[in-house]
């Protein structure tokens, strides 16, 4: 299994990189077709993604909504596509409904294929260094973070 690496390429960015054992077109579809996005971008256990709207064109918008099926709490974010180059690059803005960081961030997704495997790099550019650092440090005390940690522990146990 491939490992996910997280780096801070500049003082306002967080970048993540990971390789998937699939051709680029499939990874692209999994990021741009709502019925597929809903299957994996669901967050911690107990959460689902009831709303995923994608208008994949420059100037078009997207909207993601998550729901905690136990207590009914929700979380939502969305943004606008600035650049689309299928099946290799998407630049979009992101903003949460209930913002937990200041301003709007800009996401850049880059997919490169080599020998049938696809490397995904996603870079998020925040409004300021303070915001970027706050995002890195976020969740330390929140229940969401704890759930993610539990999920991490669960998933690190041997597969199948």
């Amino acid at each position: 299994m491939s490992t996910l690496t997280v780096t801070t390429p500049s003082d306002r960015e967080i970048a993540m990189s990971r390789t998937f054992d699939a051709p680029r077109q499939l990874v692209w579809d999994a990021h741009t077709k709502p019925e597929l996005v809903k299957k994996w971008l669901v967050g911690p256990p107990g959460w689902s993604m009831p709303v995923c709207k994608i208008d994949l064109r420059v100037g078009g918008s997207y909207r993601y909504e998550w729901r905690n099926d136990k207590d009914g709490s929700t979380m939502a974010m969305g943004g606008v596509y600035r650049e689309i180059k299928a099946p290799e690059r998407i630049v979009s803005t992101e903003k949460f409904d209930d913002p937990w960081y200041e301003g709007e961030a800009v996401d850049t997704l880059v997919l490169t294929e080599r020998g049938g495997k696809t490397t995904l790099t996603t870079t998020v550019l925040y409004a300021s260094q303070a915001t970027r650092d706050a995002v890195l440090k976020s969740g330390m005390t929140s229940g969401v973070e704890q759930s993610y940690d539990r999920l991490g522990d669960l998933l690190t146990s041997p597969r199948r």
Partner: protein
Amino acid sequence: MQSTARLDAIFAALADPTRRAILARLASGQASVNELAQPFDMSQPAVSKHLKVLERAGLISGGRDRQRRPRKLEPRPLAEATKWLERYRRRWEGNYRRLDALLEELKSKERQ
């Protein structure tokens, strides 16, 4: 230094490629300002400026030898910063593992 202020200083220090290269060099052993300046084709004052930033973040310290003042890596603050990156990483890893499974499903559908 307060822990958040210290983390800010660490991430700021790590954001610069020259400073990361200096840390990588120090990871293999102590070095003087002169020795550090050579591979980067930089003036001594320029290197000293970078060293000051790294020192303030607690990532390096000056050695005992007053003549050469060799700098050495301080592993603990670096480990602290890595811990934050690791938390962030784990938050995403769950989603990406599900994506792995979905991609397997899509691949087998394509083969049919």
